[in-house]
């Protein structure tokens, strides 16, 4: 009843549910709210409607339909940012532009990619996957053979454990969600359960580890616990419905849902069942992170519960006061996202965001919160909880446990430390400009 009455009014009658103009998330799906927002926007800008005309693309036949379609030429700024475009002898990163995307699936062309020794140009006909070590019968597989197995399809994020590393800086590094959080992406992966292949080889399940190795120019290898290998691990051969992108492991990769990206070995060519970890360079050094007391964590595995706001965020500007949709992504290596709270006053008050379903385990869940910006300074934050009950740590608690740099980080592509999963805060100025802040 009251709904009907509200539909006819502007957004002003919605009572804020938390400080600085957060509105009730249950109002999100009511058509009346969207209408009210549009009306408010038009009124605020004072734009008068002009008579409509037919543009050239309406007046003549268009281009031929291409075999492989690419985004509109007007979307040329929606690209990954790269750290090593000249392919120097070092690693290279390409980050996902989260602030320019919506939904939960990262398009394959924009999925983040890190390559430690360049991008191998692998002929799928010649690629082989070997399973050996503590097994009854070592086996070798071709891509064609694996493609004939019963396949499993699931959503999963993959996140570099160095994602969000600029937030270890003692002063906020200014950067987009792409610059700060671009080393996580989310896709639908299709592949063969690793447990099936290990079973066929007669793997000794008392062995605690499986060494996974790639066919790249580092022959990059990581030690994977047998528990994960016979759990939900996949040998993935499709990404969002098509074969894997070269930068994401073509023609096959290990997918360990919720585990740090580097363990999801790309260009997978070898799995060796063993009774001890290999202590490869990447697990010994790069992905063992220092704690404030000089000790280091080893075998972190998990990408823990995390969220960040993509809209609005750094690089965008709020042009007029009025209604906006705060939106972002949340995910946890521990399972499904249970809830996301949003604050517009730097954490003084919170309200629960709406989750766009379906909510998949170890995958992006998009959250939304309607917000009426009054033109005054505001600080937007999100905080996620997973189904295991883990809360994304508040920054003061995270810094108390994990530390921060003593000097400001000047290079946003640097990795002062690993496994940052605390909050991200976007400060809105009275001009609508957005900065990365700590709150």
């Amino acid at each position, binding site marked *: 009843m009251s709904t009907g009455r509200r539909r006819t009014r502007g957004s002003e009658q919605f009572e804020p549910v938390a400080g600085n103009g957060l509105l009730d998330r249950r109002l999100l799906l009511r058509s009346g709210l969207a209408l009210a927002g549009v009306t408010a926007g038009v009124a605020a800008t004072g734009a008068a409607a002009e008579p409509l005309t037919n543009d050239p693309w309406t007046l003549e036949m268009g281009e031929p339909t291409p075999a492989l379609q690419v985004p509109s030429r007007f979307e040329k700024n929606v690209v990954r940012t790269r750290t090593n475009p000249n392919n*120097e002898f070092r690693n290279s990163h390409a980050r996902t532009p989260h602030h320019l995307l919506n939904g939960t699936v990262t398009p394959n062309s924009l999925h983040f990619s890190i390559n430690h020794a360049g991008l191998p140009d692998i002929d799928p006909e010649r690629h082989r996957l070997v399973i050996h070590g503590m097994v009854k019968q070592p086996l070798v597989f071709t891509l064609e053979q694996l493609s004939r*197995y019963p396949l499993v399809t699931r959503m999963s994020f993959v996140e570099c454990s160095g994602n969000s590393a600029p937030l270890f800086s003692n002063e906020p590094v200014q950067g987009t969600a792409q610059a700060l959080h671009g080393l996580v992406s989310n896709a639908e992966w299709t592949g063969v359960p690793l447990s099936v292949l290990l079973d066929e080889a007669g793997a000794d399940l008392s062995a605690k580890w499986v060494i996974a190795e790639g066919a790249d120019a580092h022959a990059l290898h990581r030690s994977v616990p047998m528990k994960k290998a016979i759990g939900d691990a996949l040998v993935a051969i499709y990404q969002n419905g098509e074969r894997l992108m070269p930068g994401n492991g073509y023609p096959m990769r290990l997918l360990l849902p919720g585990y740090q990206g580097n363990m999801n070995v790309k260009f997978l060519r070898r799995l060796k069942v063993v009774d001890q970890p290999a202590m490869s360079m990447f697990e010994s050094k790069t992905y063992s992170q220092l704690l404030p007391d000089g000790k280091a964590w080893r075998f972190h*595995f998990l990408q823990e519960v995390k969220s960040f706001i993509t809209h609005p965020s750094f690089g965008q500007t709020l042009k007029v006061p009025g209604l906006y949709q705060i939106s972002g992504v949340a995910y946890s290596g521990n399972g499904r996202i249970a809830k996301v709270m949003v604050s517009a006053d730097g954490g003084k008050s919170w309200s629960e965001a709406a989750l766009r379903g379906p909510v998949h385990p170890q995958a992006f869940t998009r959250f939304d919160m309607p917000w009426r910006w009054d033109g005054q300074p505001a600080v937007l934050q999100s905080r996620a909880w997973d189904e295991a009950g883990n809360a994304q740590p508040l920054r003061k608690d995270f810094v108390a446990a994990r530390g921060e740099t003593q000097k400001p980080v000047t290079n946003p592509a640097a990795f002062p430390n690993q496994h940052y999963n605390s909050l991200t805060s976007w400060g809105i100025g009275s001009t609508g400009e957005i900065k990365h802040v700590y709150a």
Partner: protein
Amino acid sequence: MSTRKSLLAASLLLTLGAAAVAAETPKLGKPITEAEIAAWDIAAMPDGSGLPPGSGTAAQGAPIYAQKCVACHGEGGKGGVAPGAGPLAGGGPLTAGIDAPKTIGNFYGQASTVFDFTRRSMPFNMPLSLTDNEVYALTAYILALNKIIGENDVMDAKTLPQVKMPNRDGFIIRFPDRI
């Protein structure tokens, strides 16, 4: 009664059938021998398994380093030449900050890691081109630069796993229940 019996039999058959289907996997992998995998099976493990025959000393490693490594890693392993090629020698205290550089000398827990990475991934422009003796010699050279072993200590499959790295006790397993 008979209907019940046949239903029971049918459901039993169904159950057995499902179990048989579940257990049946394609088995399309071809048998291969460990000898045929040898060229890929190069992981050098902390306990010394996987280390090949051969040996080397720091003195033998120095000229190889000068020829194949110095261009990126710099004189005496000091680094600072090529971006991405970190120093191979030195390293300050790990309590200096959470972003303190992690080096072979101050951080690595196992000497096998030096051998393994050099063997599989270096030189950057020509991986897997070093002989096993060269890898032992370069490993010895790097460990000696860090004063972890002496100039004339021989590194081989027996001695390398016995090298005690300074930070070997510096690690905490984050999620032991997941191993």
